[in-house]
């Protein structure tokens, strides 16, 4: 597996950056000529992970959100979304559908959406240090070097 393209993005955990973040990732992967449905899946999954950083990782402060996107020679998109926030104590429980620690109107479906809209989701976290969510999406229709 060879990385053929990569980008990094850092921005503040302000809620109005949610649309910027998902649009930026979606614009970056356009070079792969994804379908509308694939783009929409990627946007939605990125929106979930970024919103989690804003809502849960940095609940009372503004922190930095780090996004790294890599594209492999096999049309695999690897999206890493990282925060240096509060961390997750029990990852398995956090990823269960409908589980939420929030008292506002949250469905507890963010991780379930990431899992069903991408091909692979991996979460690493340390309480007090932060969380990294890595998602992979394979595009079937196109080939990178075909362009």
């Amino acid at each position, binding site marked *: 597996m060879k990385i053929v393209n990569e980008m990094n993005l850092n921005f503040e955990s302000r*809620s*109005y950056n*949610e*649309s910027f973040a*998902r649009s930026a990732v979606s614009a970056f992967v356009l070079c792969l000529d994804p379908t*509308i*449905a694939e783009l*929409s*899946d990627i*946007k*939605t999954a990125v*929106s*979930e992970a970024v*919103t989690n950083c*804003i*809502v849960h990782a940095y609940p009372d402060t503004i922190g930095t959100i780090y996004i790294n996107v890599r594209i492999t020679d096999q049309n695999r998109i690897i999206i890493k979304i990282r925060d240096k926030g509060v961390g997750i104590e029990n990852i398995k429980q956090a990823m269960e559908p409908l589980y939420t620690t929030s008292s*506002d*109107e*949250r*469905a507890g*479906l*963010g991780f*379930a*959406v990431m899992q*069903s*809209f991408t091909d692979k989701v991996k979460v690493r976290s340390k309480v007090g240090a932060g969380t990294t969510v890595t998602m992979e999406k394979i595009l079937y229709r196109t080939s990178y070097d075909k362009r």
Partner: protein
Amino acid sequence: MVETKFSDDVLTAKLYGEIDHHKAPSIRQKIDGQTESLRPKELHLDFSGVSFMDSSGIGLIMGRYRQVSLVGGKLKVINVPKNLQKIISLSGIDSLGVLK
């Protein structure tokens, strides 16, 4: 963004654009304000103008289901575009019987 209309005991809220955690609070506020003052028999959430939605939109639907129940009304979710059907079906809100 949201536009509301009230007639025949039905409050229709037409949603526009992208619904995420940033946009949801103002939409929620407007719909809940009208739900409390107008006490509709039915609240219709019209998604025809929505181009993007994440789980914050699901939270918005479930929250309005509760709010309109409090005034004795029923929720209906109408005109869900094709590109939102995947997230709607994953959410299980279908089991509330609100989808039309």
